[in-house]
């Protein structure tokens, strides 16, 4: 009877374990194995090799570029905004509305977000038209297109920046006033304090947010599809089309593409964990 007890304890996790295995792990594993199988189930590297065509490679490359750009800018702008509100001596009343709005905006992704940006920076968008009629600036002629690298990056920033604000605000709050003062009184300039003390302390949080934002942008399907239809060649859109209609003409190439996505986000997270471990030697 005694011996049986520990297994009873583990039994309490059964529903959760079943859910996670059936609907998170198994589907992912199916993708991973499928990427190395032919239609008849035999083992092969053909699917992986099939990824190395110019169009698929470039789709990964564009996706990675958009994800890196939108997460880097999201981190930077989000950090600046949070720092401005917390440390910039602005009225205290601004903080709470900013956080509420960030909660809203970080969840306002997907299709409606694409509409909002079409209405603003699209060919007939508010800003596009305003710039053209009032200042004679023709965004289109200058090479700007909402259905492009920069268009997508600017759109993604709408949920990336708020996510950064939400995560980094508590971290900035955690910077003690005494640290700044101790640095100052020891002769450090503001820049030296940020470089040698504040940023290293915030680094793990910033890095974690960056990894999260990266995965967030890399896997974003809805915004991209609603914004660009299928005119922009990025991974999630290609995979979406492949799942729907096997546009690549090889069902198992879809597995390989999906595996590629997992590999990219996993790599981003491994890099994050590794950097974080290095950065956090001073933490308990």
């Amino acid at each position, binding site marked *: 009877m005694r011996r049986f007890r520990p297994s009873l304890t583990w039994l309490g996790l059964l529903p959760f374990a079943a859910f996670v295995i059936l609907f998170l792990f198994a589907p992912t594993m199916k993708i991973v194995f499928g990427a190395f199988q032919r239609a008849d189930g035999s083992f092969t590297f053909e699917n992986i090799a099939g990824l190395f065509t110019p169009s698929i490679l470039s789709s990964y490359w564009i996706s990675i570029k958009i994800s890196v750009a939108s997460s880097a800018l999201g981190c930077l702008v989000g950090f600046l905004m949070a720092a401005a509100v917390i440390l910039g001596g602005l009225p205290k009343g601004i903080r709470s509305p900013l956080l509420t709005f960030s909660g809203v905006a970080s969840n306002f992704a997907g299709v409606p977000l694409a509409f909002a940006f079409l209405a*603003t920076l699209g060919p007939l968008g508010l800003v596009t038209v305003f710039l053209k009629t009032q200042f004679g600036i023709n965004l289109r002629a200058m090479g700007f297109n909402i259905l492009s690298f920069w268009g997508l990056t600017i759109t993604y920033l709408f949920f990336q920046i708020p996510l950064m604000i939400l995560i980094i605000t508590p971290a900035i709050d955690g910077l003690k006033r005494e640290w700044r003062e101790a640095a100052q009184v020891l002769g450090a300039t503001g820049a030296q304090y940020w470089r040698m003390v504040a940023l290293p302390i915030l680094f793990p949080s910033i890095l974690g947010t960056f990894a999260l934002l990266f995965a967030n942008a890399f896997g974003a399907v809805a915004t991209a599809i609603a914004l660009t239809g299928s005119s922009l060649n990025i991974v999630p859109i290609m995979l979406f089309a492949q799942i729907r209609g096997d546009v690549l003409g090889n069902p198992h190439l879809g597995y390989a593409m999906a595996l590629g996505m997992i590999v990219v986000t996993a790599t981003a997270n491994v890099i994050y964990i590794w950097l974080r471990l290095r950065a956090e030697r001073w933490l308990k």
Partner: protein
Amino acid sequence: MKKFAAWAILLLGVTYFVLPLIGMTEFSLSMRRGEYSFDAYAKVLADPQFRQTFGYSVIMSLMTIAVGVLLVVPTAFWVQLRLPQIRPLIEFITLLPLVIPAIVTVFGYIRLYNTSSWLPLTGSLWGTNFLLLMGYSTLSLPYMYRAVDTGLRAIDVRTLTEAAQSLGAGWVLILARVIMPNVLVAVLSGAFVTFAIVMGEFTMAALLNRPAFGPYLQLMGANKAYEPFALAVIAFAITWACMGLFQLVTRFSKHTKAAG
């Protein structure tokens, strides 16, 4: 100087966030030539497909919340009570959906549970709806679990449980009568985020071919001129309401904590 820079950053940021909102609102009101009107909204609201998909997504959201509560509360409770050593692992697992793209998960579903598989869920309407519900539940898992886990940490799970056990209560009763009321606020805050996520979800519903609000939005965007913007405004309002309620609930919980 510092203050000036701070104001400048804030104003630039606010401009970036406000312009798209103005843009979509302006478009949504411009259906009638030369004057503002609510015509686009009237069109949308009169569309039976809008009502169907909206209703479908509302029901799916509520069911996702129910699944989340039934799955997460007992698990988080059990982990805190009996298996604290595996908490980091559980926490890690619950964060995975933020890292594995939804499109990959749902692709796995389609291939794993297709009509010729051992569990042909996609073969029936019921099964596909169930699959979508599970997909939504994975999406809400990170938020639900964090909210509930934080809520549980704020109360003394062990003492409460032992007190209830000494009075003869069983596990179901303990969870329903003792733990749930104490983490209700946490559950609610997780529920609002879940609602907002599910209402706007596109990828999973589209690939499983279910008539949800997200795919409907996309369809309208591809085919109509002004209605999509009215829909975007409505979607924004829903998100705002959810997050507003989330804030309210969170603030309320801080209040009661400070008082208690």
